């Protein structure tokens, strides 16, 4: 739990509750480890219920402190999830690009969040384990502006084409990234994009002022955040995260 950026400028600071959801072993905990400690452990202790971690993210205008709930992925833990996504302002729904069923599960989570979580929750769809896909990396952007790799090679472990997931994310107005917790690729970008996508009015104070989270304006906020999402992916990447 390293608040590595404690010495940041006195910018307005606010905390954001973020929950990670997704099938077992897609790399939720690894993503968080990479984001929080910039570390990758091959053998992570499984999450019992959910692990709690925090990390700050410096944006040009403000500091966001992420309170991250990293939930257990095993199917039977699903009924515990509401406990963790309650009041969450952001969610990272993670799937494994080498396992098609994990995207289906991710879609279920998105549906669950859209109906049950607080309105206006910012959802990012994240395809992890990009390091296992051959077509990933630099070649991607050259081939296609949308970051769609052309053809999957035979030796490629990728099972979920970027195009499929991206189309789904667009349809549901989700942020979308493909990441590798192992190499660190795109990990910080995901969190920065989320930080940017959360509208100012949704943010609660650094501590103790939690009660003021927008209840009445929830419906309007939803629209605002959705509008924000469209451009967030690219914008966020440039700004970068302090960690």
């Amino acid at each position, binding site marked *: 739990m390293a608040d590595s950026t404690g010495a940041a400028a006195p910018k307005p600071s606010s905390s954001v509750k973020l929950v990670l959801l997704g099938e077992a072993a897609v790399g939720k905990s690894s993503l968080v480890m990479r984001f929080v400690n910039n570390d990758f452990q091959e053998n992570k202790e499984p999450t019992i219920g959910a692990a709690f971690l925090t990390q700050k993210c410096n944006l040009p205008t403000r500091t966001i402190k992420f309170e991250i709930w990293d939930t257990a992925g095993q199917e039977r833990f699903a*009924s515990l999830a509401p406990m963790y996504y309650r009041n969450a302002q952001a969610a990272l729904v993670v799937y494994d690009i080498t396992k098609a069923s994990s995207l289906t599960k991710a879609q279920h989570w998105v549906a669950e969040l859209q109906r049950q979580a607080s309105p206006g929750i910012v959802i990012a769809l994240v395809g992890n384990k990009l390091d296992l896909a051959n077509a990933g990396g630099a070649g991607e952007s050259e081939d296609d502006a949308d970051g769609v790799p052309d053809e999957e090679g035979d030796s490629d472990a990728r099972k979920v084409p970027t195009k499929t997931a991206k189309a789904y994310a667009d349809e549901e107005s989700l942020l979308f990234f493909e990441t590798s917790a192992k190499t660190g690729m795109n990990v910080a970008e995901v969190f920065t994009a989320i930080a940017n996508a959360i509208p100012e009015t949704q943010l609660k104070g650094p501590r103790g002022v939690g009660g003021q989270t927008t209840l009445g304006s929830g419906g309007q906020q939803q629209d605002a955040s959705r509008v924000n999402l469209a451009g967030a992916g690219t914008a966020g990447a440039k700004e970068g995260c302090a960690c």
Partner: protein
Amino acid sequence: MFNLSSLVQKAQQFIDPTLSQTTPSTDRRPSKSTLFRHQFRLPDTQNPLQEITAELTLSSHHSTRSSSDHPDDEERGRGNRYVGKLHLSEQFLCFSTQGSSFLNTASLSSSSAFTGQTHGAGPAGNGFTLPLCAIRRVERLHSQSYMFALAITTWNGFGEQSKKEGGQKLTIQLAGSRQQCERFCDRLKKGLREGIKEVENLRAVASQCYSEYLLANDPKKKEEDRKQESKREAPDTGLGMIFRYPGNPRKLRDGTKMRLWREYLNENGRNATLIRQPTFHKLIRVGLPNRLRGEMWELTSGSFFLRLQKPNQYAETLAKHEGRNSLAIEEIEKDLNRSLPEYPGFQSEEGIGRLRRVLTAYSWTDEEVGYCQAMNIVVAALLIYMSEAQAFSLLSVLCDRLLPGYYSQTMYGTLLDQRVFESLVEKTMPILWDHLVKSDVQLSVVSLPWFLSLYINSMPLIFAFRVLDVFFLEGPKVLFQIGLAILRINGEELLDASDDGTFISVLKSYFARLDESAHPKSENPKLRAVTRFQELMVTAFREFAGITQNTISEQRAKHKDAVLENIENFAKRTSIRNLGPDSKRLSTNDLGFMYDRFYGVLYERQQRAQMFQQEADRRAKASGTKATRIATDALHNNSVEMGRVAVGPSPTQMDYDAFREFLAGITRWAVSDSPSSPQDANAEKQNYSYFGNSMRNRSVALSPWGAGPEPADHEFMQRLFRRWDVNMNHALSLQDVVTGFAQVKGTKDIMSNISYFFELYDDDGDGKVDREGILRISEALLFLSRRGLENVPSTSASLNSLQQKESTDNVGGGRENRDEQILSSISAFIRRCFEYADPDHAINQTDNSSNKLIDTTEKAVDAFSIGDDEDEDDLLSFSSTPSSPKPTDPANPTQTTGAPLQMQPPPSTPLTPKPDKHTANAALDPTKPLYITLPTFRMLILADETLESFFESAFANSFRLADGPSSAPSTTNLTTFANVNAPSRAAAAQALSLPQDAAGVAGPGGKGLRGMLDNIVSDGMRVAAEVRRRMEEAQREMDRAAQQGASYDEDDEEERGRRIGRVGNEVVEFER
């Protein structure tokens, strides 16, 4: 919307009427036997047989050897006395100072577990739990005449040592009438005889106990003895032997503890023969020594007794399932490398291998639980101190008894205990609770991992093991006491925390400093030496001593319903939402209804199956096979409440029979017309001999369909089932059913409905339905419409006027008219089918034959659905030919259709093959295959208003979901047969006396239109079946003819055609 839990409750009441009387809550009071087993941690096979008040005297030799070590304990010199209850079960003799009564003769209210404060002794109190096989001899002591005393000698240590020392002796005085005492002793004698069989098991299991090894190597022993004994290898006491035990042994004072334990065991017996005295509990409280820890966990949790019953279960389970794979195994593999990775043993193949085997073996023994994350951590911890077999049976005890429902599919036990914990916090620390509520911190996000992994993941290992020591002795309440104490100790800091994050970090840093002094600044060096962990234990067991097992049970009962309902709602919500795109074509209400109905049916079936099983068990037991049952299903806790979705483990797949039941609840046509219940099993069967083809032979046990209507079994339902069974595994998931319904109900497009139906019968998918298929389609249409169609739009003018006309005549006339309408529509459909069917051979397409074909089929089919008695007579005569495979029983006098009894086959009718006109009845000629295509089928359907409306809406509407009645439809609908009431019977009798020709004519007048129509419908079905059968016979004839090289069967065809034609004419007359 239909509520699953209410349905479930209803079902439960149905199954166990006593349940509904106790409480509306689903929590049932544990049985006396359960309480007994729980107190003494006995396997599920044990029942309280005898109990008596007694005084236990531990003979003085117990303490002689150690008296020097305990000079302060003067009492020991005289021998300790304990007053308590002596219980006898099938395989155990138990004594406890905790008052309790489990006797079968006691009423439920007077039988009770001891659930009050145990003062550290655990529910079993002071005393012993002796397997009968561990008792070497029992003597009746000749003391004063009014005393009834037994001296019990146990096998204290096997082999040489035991012989020399003469075992361990204890004296028990029974306090009761002479009769009571005698009864107890008789039963004990019997048990002891049985117990001899188990001695080998005991020998095997005891040899794996470290205590045996420890005492055999007593340093006080003579040198030669030690040499002799120490040849034995030390038993497996877990990975700690190889990779060291966690913590610093010196700091843990492991040596001192071991010495104390050696003394205690020497005096009080080891493993199976151990006697619990207050020292025993104290020694556990201060922490078990490393090498004895596993054994003591086994003894205090009772898993030792499981192992005693089945010493080889672990090895056998592994061997039995070797090489097999499962979802649980996949999940286990994912977690193997991340279970206590900080312990060196689990960075090695050795440790990981052990973990894999134990988890896998358990997943096979309890497939409902399978594997749940957190089990890996718990088992990994156990394996540091225990062998694989020990950990395996301890895991069983954990899952079945100590942590019920924690690791189940829905984890309801975990959620329930979190709720209980919250309510205890609210009760004991109201200020902190208010603060939590105010700052919107959810307590369970912190406490859930504590309970789920028994603090192993939260505290440093050495402290977590100390908690486990007490937990196994005293039971689940310990988890709550420790949890409360943690919050109490950190109360002030927690009051300053206002969000999840701070809350968690306060506790995290507390756990990290458990080994530090609780009072670092104290002047008193003794106080300074108290660690935070010691402070925690004291707080937990002193300040929260009031939290007893009883408290927990009460709280669980209180919150159970709400928690289960929450889970069920979540499961339903998720399940419905995840049904995929097809489900969008149905309304949410419909989906919810379908969900309830689907799981309701599965649940009811499961309950019934269980009931039958119990019944069978009971019978088996009664017939003296009791012995074989002992030691079976020890791992299965029968008292686990089954069936609620939230409690799991509920089936998720529906087989064909369940599907039938499912359909019977939502459609009228899927309800059987001929329930196999004995009281009306007379005539129906006959009348629907048509169904006989597909009706399976089913043993009519006690109402196999429960309270609901008995479902029909029709070929159409089988087809529907196969069609919906997309995975071809002979079972439907909810997904399959919803997708299936979406196809049937979710579309308003008549064309796709028609194609759907056509495809159902296009078996090979070539776009053609052959003659057989056409007949089957017509049968299905008759089947589906036999109770009338729903929502047949009366827009059709003709129908409308007909209805109006009829309604003036008699009530319900419109209905009957519609039935008639359906019949004639279907018969017209069959006729047209053959009319427009495409012949399969080019040869048949000569003008001549096709003309004839049309001509004859028309006649033939006229007779199809509307046959009168005479016709039936003729048709049935065919069935009496010996070659008939399934002869109907034409002579059944109970037939209410008024069929004349003179059914002698006319001399000309038997299948006397005569070579004659070949094409006369080409429709029925197996040599002339023909088929219809989808466009033809479509055209034929659209040509008829009734059929058109059937496919447009009536078929889809025949499935009644959320909008329809929530319960199974009543059977008061027009079942074609049930409505034959007394008057019509009279009429039928009357008809019998009439001349044959008049019977058909007299029918309408005498029986009333309703009865007549019923007959028509059933006759129609019979005719269809007859035609089918005759075709089969004809086919056989053909085959025979082909063998003989002759072609004389054509005449038969002609004959048949003629006959049908004649019948058809009569029907036409009748219709006029």
